């Protein structure tokens, strides 16, 4: 009989890209010539009005071969207005589907835009930043080809104390796209170039800059331990923890995500996060009105609880147990699931004393209540946790006390009810538990077989996935 216990997955929820209405492109004369007549000098720029709002047929524009012309205009250093309009138009085309972005790239826009990053006209270099951001955001392929074309140095050079905030926001967003996407991750040396500037941007107090910069860090920490290492070594952790407590959700969310990613790393990396003060902020996040924050805070907690005993001890001393109990009791159901993992990890890795403290904190009642959850995985984890509790109780010679406690809290009933659960593994696990520990307290049970559980706790970066049933 095989059990295929799914390891915890750290997949982020994918955000569906929101498509904007494509802007209108008037198909007027695209000639950059202008008459020398003073009258026309004063009339609005006769270059195509490429940016109004009505819906244009974007694909027809592409088919009409306009893109190469626009790319050519990017090179007209003598006509900055034309450059700017062309840059804007190409930005908007590149903001569309992957096909549309591809058309822009294949039109040769990338080297032109990279060159324009150094334009003496700030609005043109900014528009280029934006366009390149759209291209990088298409996926790892274009992201890496931008990096290979050396986009990073001129981009970073634009960040200066005198750079206007709007411009900085654009740069930060584009940088975040350069850090984004996996399969593959961005090259490590590129990250090494970007990180110092990113760290700088994180010192800013503009919420939009902070948000995008935190997202960038969250992307960078969403990978192997050596990627986490590079980020942790910058010393950014205290600032990240601080930003976890920011009033703006748009900043809190990615900061928490980044920290959550970091504590899926090594014990040392987790300790650095703890040293930076993450535990002090978790309680308020565990009861945050926003369910996603609760969930991710609980996930973070669960990964810390999968650490060595000293770290578990820190959870206790920093007063996280009451918060954990609260989440189990009243939290959003997604957060509850994570909290269950936290308890499971705690009972697996903690010392007997620590487990006692856990039980004394009142964890059992809400935990047992969750046995009525619809999610089989959760049930299994709870059952495993109870098993761990009994292990500890045995060492103290207090198994009977535990039995009574479980029964008083209505847990026995729930476990018994699980014998008729649809899921086979649940049924067998419940059975096993009852036979092993409650045989004296209850009626007869069929013969138990071996322990059906494997280790289900542990720390890694993955989210709880769907439970795969083993075939009985």
């Amino acid at each position, binding site marked *: 009989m095989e059990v295929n216990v799914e390891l915890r997955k750290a997949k982020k929820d994918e955000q569906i890209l929101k498509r904007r209405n494509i802007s209108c492109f008037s198909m007027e004369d695209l000639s950059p010539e202008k008459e020398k007549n003073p009258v026309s000098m004063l009339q609005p720029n006769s270059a195509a009005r490429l940016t109004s709002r009505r819906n244009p047929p974007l694909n027809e524009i592409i088919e009409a071969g306009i893109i190469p012309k626009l790319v050519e205009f990017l090179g007209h250093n003598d006509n900055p207005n034309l450059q700017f309009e062309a840059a804007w138009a190409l930005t908007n085309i590149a903001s569309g589907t992957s096909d549309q972005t591809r058309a822009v790239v294949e039109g040769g826009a990338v080297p032109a835009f990279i060159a324009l990053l150094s334009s003496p006209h700030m609005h043109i270099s900014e528009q280029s930043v934006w366009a390149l951001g759209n291209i990088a955001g298409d996926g790892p392929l274009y992201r890496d080809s931008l990096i290979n074309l050396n986009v990073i140095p001129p981009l970073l050079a634009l960040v200066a104390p005198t750079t206007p905030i709007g411009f900085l926001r654009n740069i930060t967003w584009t940088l975040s796209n350069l850090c984004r996407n996996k399969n593959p991750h961005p090259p490590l040396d590129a990250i090494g170039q970007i990180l110092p500037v990113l760290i700088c941007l994180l010192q800013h107090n503009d919420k939009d800059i902070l948000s995008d910069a935190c997202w960038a860090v969250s992307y960078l920490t969403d990978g192997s331990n050596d990627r986490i290492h590079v980020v942790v070594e910058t010393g950014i952790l205290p600032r990240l923890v601080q930003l976890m407590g920011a009033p703006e*959700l748009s900043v809190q969310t990615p900061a928490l995500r980044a920290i959550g990613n970091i504590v899926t790393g090594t014990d040392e990396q987790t300790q650095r996060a703890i040293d930076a003060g993450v535990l002090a902020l978790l309680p308020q996040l565990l009861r945050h009105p926003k369910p996603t924050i609760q969930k991710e805070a609980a996930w973070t907690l669960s990964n810390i609880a999968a650490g060595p005993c000293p770290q578990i001890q820190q959870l206790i001393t920093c007063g996280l147990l009451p918060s954990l109990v609260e989440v189990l009791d009243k939290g959003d159901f997604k957060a509850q699931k994570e909290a269950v993992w936290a308890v499971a990890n705690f009972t697996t890795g903690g010392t007997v004393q620590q487990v006692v403290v856990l039980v004394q904190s009142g964890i059992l009642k809400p935990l047992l209540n969750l046995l009525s959850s619809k999610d089989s995985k959760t049930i299994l984890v709870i059952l495993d946790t109870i098993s761990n509790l009994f292990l500890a109780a045995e060492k103290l010679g207090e198994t009977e006390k535990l039995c009574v406690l479980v029964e008083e809290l209505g847990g026995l009933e729930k476990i018994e009810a699980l014998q008729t659960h649809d899921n086979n593994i649940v049924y067998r696990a419940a059975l096993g538990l009852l036979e092993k520990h409650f045989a004296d307290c209850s009626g007869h049970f069929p013969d138990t077989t071996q322990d059906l559980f494997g280790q289900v706790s542990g720390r890694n970066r993955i989210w709880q996935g769907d439970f795969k049933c083993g075939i009985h």
Partner: protein
Amino acid sequence: VFTSSFSRCLMLSSVVVFLQRVLLLVASDVDALCACKILQALFQCDHVQYTLVPVSGWQELETAFLEHKDQFKYFVFINCGANVDLLEILQPEEDIILFVCDTHRPINVVNIYNETQVKLLVKQDDDLEIPAYDDLFRDEEEDEEDSGNESEGTEPSEKRRRLEEVWREILFEYEQYEYHGTSSAMVMFDLAWIMSKDLNDMLWWAIVGLTDQWVQDRITQMKYVTDIGTLQRHVSRHNHRNEDDENSLSIDCMRIAFEYDLRLALYQHWSLYESLCNTCYTSASLKLWSVQGQKRLQELLADMGLPLKQVKQKFHSMDISLKENLQEMIEESANKFGMKDLRVQTFSIHFGFKNKFLASDVVYATVSLMENIEKDESETDNFIRALDSLSRSNLDKLRQGLELAKKQLRAIQQTVASCICTNLVISQGPFLYCYLMEGTPDVKLFSKPVSLCLLSKYLLKSFVCSTKNKRCKLLPLIMAAPMNVEQATVIMVGIPPETESSDKKNFFGRAFEKAAESTNSRTLHNHFDMSIIELKMEDRSKFLDALTSLLS
């Protein structure tokens, strides 16, 4: 950081030690001429080679640039260039640098945000009201397409489209009204002062430049008074009492003095009577185009205790006893007739023997020389003569200018009187309109922009005094006059309404542009002031109709 209270004062000083030559492009207004004089003096000091090209409009500016762009690397624009995208129009090579000292506002945003090729000489405290870079070159993202859930905690979009409206709105707002900043002559003087090369002559030119702005009604009263204060400090510094005694007898030295003098145009070089009749302020307040007005004038003179015979004499021939407390006397009497601002803060210059001129005298004289129609001379010749007249050594030219100015002021007053008496000023709804027909006396004089503008301003002020229609008093005025009979063109100017707290901002530039576009009228927007255009006589009525509907 390019935020709202952005200001720049870039100094030429670091660049004045040119190893190359400089091309000076100077517009045709007195402030520009004064600024030019100061710069020329500075160049002379430092042995900088330069070439001077007077330009009266965009066509000349462009032509001059094209003709010289291969031989010059440095160009200085005086009272032209700030309000357009200079780089787009001129397309200079990368190593060419353009210095712009121009009172025209608003400054084109491209000129501001391009750092390398366009250097603006702007006074530090001038409120440029520049839209913040952030507002102008970026905009808020509209999240209306988002289905709304968790828009705050969501990941940033992988791609973003740039929206347009906000940007263009802001730009439109910014560019809608034209106005004028600090006098270029004053800016140049500042430059000289910073370089410790300022001389009393330069100070006088700065004063004349500022006064030109006042005469042309280009700046608010408050700005004028503030700038007078600034200049007064320099005047005190340069013209200490003790230096006086040594120098007062020398024919070469000059002295500037602060004056709180009558604003009667040219009165010390004319007769008091003529001046009273031909100064807009008195003429309009007393309504001298009417019979009652004439009576009031007599009463005023009587009240001042000035016999008519005396008053009609040349001023310097008037009895000394009458001249003694003239200013106070006139002021007192004028007050009784509703003229509370007959005196104005200004400056005078004294040099040689008995040569004394008020700043406004010089302004009127210079304008007349510059727009002289008497001899059939080229605009450039007139420009040069006007420029020369600003040097003390060319007193004869100044005197010639004064005579011409008297004719001009008389012509203006007569035209104003005639327009009002024959009801030539009509209301088109959103604005007043007045057209000077061919054949009107002195109409040739008013084919020139400054003269036409002066006429328009005086006409509007007088009209406002004459009309009983409250609504009409608040309207702006468009004035047109024949420009070139053979080509059948007219010159048209638009001026803002006459109100006490007027900010002197003029929206006609944009309005003319739009009306021209929408009617396909054949217009030439050649003047540096966008509110002055040429148009084909035939297109006049459809153009006006378009304007009327545009502004309604």
